[in-house]
């Protein structure tokens, strides 16, 4: 199949396509045809030929390739049907229209993909700082004793609870408990906290789950708002 391989050498592997749209766009571009006036007969034949080749090369094609093949055959058969006279003026009846639109969209996406690749490649060598514990020599002073106590208290309770867990093998995490924790965070960091950081401070699945409910609860009651910060999704007390 010289449309795929100009040398005609079967030993050379077939090009691999990301999906049926990728293959279809390749065929359209290779044949230099108008995306809005696809010679459906020709393209369908070439599409099916590729699938045949792929089978010979033991190339695993996903079900999506077969779905597209069926779509192409359907369009082809519709094109063969005589156009009824009352419909002839209606452009929207062209069975290829949907396909053209999809191809056009996919072509735009491919362009953006190339642009993204270029941008990321250009940015990659400029390594930024990895986020670490030590941001700088500075930190906030003084550390509020209350804030520390909140952690202290949380730890205290946690240790107590863990002992209970060993006896009952059941984990008890109350929503109130997590709400209190979240509120103490929110109270201490009025400029907001990273949700990720809050969740990372939870040690068990149950704690994590209940923490999430706590976050949602504060948002629901309007006590706190979620917002996008430079580091990621964050939550802060709603001052209004």
């Amino acid at each position: 199949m010289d449309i795929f391989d100009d040398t005609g050498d079967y030993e050379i592997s077939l090009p691999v396509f990301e999906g049926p749209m990728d293959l279809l766009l390749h065929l359209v571009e290779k044949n230099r045809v108008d995306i809005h006036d696809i010679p459906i007969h020709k393209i369908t034949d070439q599409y099916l030929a590729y699938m045949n080749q792929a089978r010979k090369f033991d190339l695993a094609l996903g079900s999506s390739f077969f779905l597209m093949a069926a779509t192409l055959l359907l369009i082809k058969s519709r094109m063969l049907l005589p156009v009824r006279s009352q419909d002839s003026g209606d452009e929207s009846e062209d069975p290829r229209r949907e396909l053209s639109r999809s191809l056009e969209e996919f072509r735009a996406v491919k362009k953006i993909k190339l642009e993204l690749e270029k941008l990321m490649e250009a940015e990659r060598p400029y390594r930024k700082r990895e986020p670490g514990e030590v941001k700088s020599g500075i930190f906030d002073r003084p550390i509020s004793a209350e804030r520390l106590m909140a952690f202290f208290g949380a730890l205290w309770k946690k240790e107590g609870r863990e002992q209970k867990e060993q006896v009952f093998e059941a984990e008890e995490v109350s929503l109130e408990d997590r709400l209190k924790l979240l509120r103490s965070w929110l109270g201490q960091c009025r400029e907001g906290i990273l949700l990720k950081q809050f969740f990372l401070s939870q040690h068990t699945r149950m704690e994590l789950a209940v923490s999430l409910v706590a976050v949602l609860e504060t948002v629901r009651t309007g006590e706190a708002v979620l917002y996008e910060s430079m580091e990621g999704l964050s939550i802060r007390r709603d001052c209004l």
Partner: protein
Amino acid sequence: MSLPRLAASLEALLFVRGNPLTLEELSGLLKTGSAEVEAALSELEKKYSSENSGITVHCSGGRWCLATKPEYDGWISSVLGRSAPLSPAALETLAVIACKEPVTRSEIEQVRGVSADRVLASLMEKGLIEERGRMDIPGKPILYGTTALFLKDTGLSSVEELKTRCMNEITKEESLF
């Protein structure tokens, strides 16, 4: 503040804030005009280039930050390892999301013609996309969008910028015919 002192303050500021900052943000934080900030930035640039320095000031997407010099990339990668570049499928999915965000999985799959399950999970794990709530239709599908890390990694100031860049390119090409 003298220029060298301003440049040193700027250096400390950029160092502490890992995230890139715009000229306006810097000017606001340093409480000085943007002309002075620009002068301080080029002072820093000069300092880093004239010396045997491993780091430099880097601007992309109109935002400034400190970063390692590109010529050290190979060496740092060999020492600390490097993250593998995105697969073609991941890049393509990212392009769809950037294009249409917020967007559901089924919309993404429709554009690409293939299942997006695995790719979405991998992009989520890399922190390049995130969930943006759910669409208010039956099934309440998750909506996906790009993250701040995505902007940082591409050096874009916004997703709109990407679209504009590609549109310009398309128009340029079409005007050739």
